[in-house]
């Protein structure tokens, strides 16, 4: 069935197709250029990214180094769960964090039933949409993105890109070395649904809290935006 269906479908498509050579098709696509992207809400990238994360109902902590990152995560865990446990993938960058300094007890692996928090280390942050990007692999089990009640995502300031086009450049570049990942996830907020009477509810199938920890030399103004929103939320 598959074979004859395939040949029949391609035969009818060839009738309507232009029958152009590969070079011509690719040249025509190239001539169409790239899509316009929206202007960021601020000129400084961290500020723009943070504003968009907040718009997506995320919360943000800004930290300068790994030690501060661990402290901020510990603080978040205690504030929400009164303990210091979380699950995270086998990411060497996460393995090398000074967890003990803040008493955090990470379990490295894939989220299991009853575990409410997972931490992912994003490959990229997209300023345009306030999204973080992860791709599947040992370092980022999919369950850690989609099953916890709270999803914490660490993202390096150096990994912020302005647009989704720039994100693809970086993704394709990374895959040249490693091969293509099975899944690439742009995550822009906690899971939500407005299916019942158009009332927005957070925490549908996935996380109901989404917390981004931005790591690096983040300007004071951007930090202030994040902390002001944080104090609004608590």
């Amino acid at each position, binding site marked *: 069935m598959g074979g004859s269906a395939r040949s029949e479908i391609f035969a009818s*498509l060839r009738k309507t197709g232009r029958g152009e050579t590969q070079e011509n098709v690719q040249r025509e696509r190239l001539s169409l250029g790239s899509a316009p992207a*929206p202007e960021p809400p601020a000129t400084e990238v961290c500020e723009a990214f943070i504003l968009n994360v907040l718009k997506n109902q995320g919360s943000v902590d800004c930290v300068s180094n790994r030690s501060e990152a661990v402290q901020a995560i510990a603080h978040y865990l205690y504030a929400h769960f009164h303990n210091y446990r979380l699950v995270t993938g086998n990411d060497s960058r996460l393995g090398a964090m000074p967890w003990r300094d803040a008493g955090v007890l990470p379990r490295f692996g894939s989220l299991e039933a009853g575990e409410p928090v997972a931490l992912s280390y994003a490959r990229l942050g997209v300023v345009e949409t306030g999204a973080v990007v992860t791709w599947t692999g040992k370092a980022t089990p*999919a*369950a850690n993105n989609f099953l916890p009640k709270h999803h914490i995502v660490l993202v390096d300031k150096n990994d912020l890109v302005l647009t989704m*086009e720039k994100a693809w450049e970086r993704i394709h570049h990374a895959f040249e070395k490693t091969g293509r990942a099975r899944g690439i996830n742009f995550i822009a907020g906690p899971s939500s649904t407005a299916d019942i009477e158009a009332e927005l509810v957070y925490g*549908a199938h*996935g996380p109901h809290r989404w917390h981004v920890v931005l790591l690096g030399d983040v300007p004071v103004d951007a930090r202030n935006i994040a902390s002001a929103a944080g104090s609004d939320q608590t």
Partner: protein
Amino acid sequence: MEQRRDTFIDNASAALKNLKQAERRDIIASFAPQIRAAAIDSFEGFGDLRSHVKKIRQHSLDNLDYYLSQFEKEAVHNGNQVHFARDGEELNSVVLDICQQHDARRVAKGKSIVTEETGLNSFLQSAGLSVMETDVGEYIVQQAGEKPSHIVTPVLHKSADEIRELFQEKHDLGPRDLHNTSDLVVEACNVLREHFLQAEVGIIGANALIAENGYCMLVTNEGNGDLCANLPKVLIVCTTIDRVLPRAEDATAMSRLLARSATGQPQSCYTSFYSGPRREGELDGPLETHFVLLDNERSNTLASNYREILECIRCGACLNHCPIYTSVGGHAYDSVYPGPMGSVLTPLLTSLEQSHLLPNACTSCGLCEEVCPADIPLPDLLRDLRHDESTKKLSAPRWRYGLKLHSWLARHPSTYQALTAISIGILYRLGRKRGGFSKLPFGSGWTSQREFPAPQEGTFMKLYKAEIKQNNGR
């Protein structure tokens, strides 16, 4: 799609009488356009983006044979099995075969309009499989034994009270508080979580296929599609051949249009790209992945004058803005695809003979085209379908003769003007005292609902000519 669509008028009349549902449609008709407008107003380049994506879509469809085969090659390279299906029956059989090869008993489904089109759920269920829709709205619709009434918000027609009652009846969970909407969502998701964890097969749709790297794009807010794509051992992606785009950046450019037009967001919560089975060292993900690519009249539509409807990105904006859809709701169309886009697509996927009433569900207000992010000339396509309907003599003879008469008169302006002057004159004289008519010969369609106002003396042309004469005399 086996439904008959000659029931549109009866369905629409019944829907208009259901005031509770009409209230909810009124809410969506005011709320959805507002959030869409706000999202678009805050993005200055939206018009340019729309034109850019339109060109990309046209280019992709012009070279669909090339891009589809490129997609197939890349998807196979990524470790997928790619199947083609000429029609719904073939798609259903391919999917069932895969399920049976794995002795699967449970299937978790993400939202997929294409599998609604093919009737996959009932097909799999009749073969003994347990199939669960996992999008909250789709799950409710499935539990109620109904069909979605909107392509983005499928359970728009049901109130929270009705859903509460449904859950009390269907979920054997004892006494509990389901007072808030969030209680209902949590309960649905808890029930579904069990199913996710037990399902052997996950089925999802795709918003786009990417030729250059063989990935599919999946856009959701709930994340249920991602659970379907990641938890079961086998993943089947069902979509149609026309969804292919050349590059990854084309898919995300399209998602910029989609999220803003559908839900007023700059980006949906989850925009995911999947291709192929679990890689070495991965802790989760399917062990086997399939793409099933359906034609079902798309290649014929591509060869027709209606090919632009294939550029639809299923955002639902034309439904939310359509005065007919927002008055009668999705079920009146008795098709998986309601509203303006459905009134074009359904006759093309079934036949005009079966569905010729749908292109008439249009006031020619033009709003659908104005808001369509894919820039599809929906009113023109609907008009052309009505023209075909008339040419094929599918519309009522009285209507066709009336149209013929109208077209003859429009081509003979002096006769047209003379006849309208006579009838306006008569109506003016008869109606000037009462101000309107509650009955009129040939006008019962109007007067059965409301008074027909008596015209002023003289036609527009008469006044216009007098004005010109006066101006020339000055």
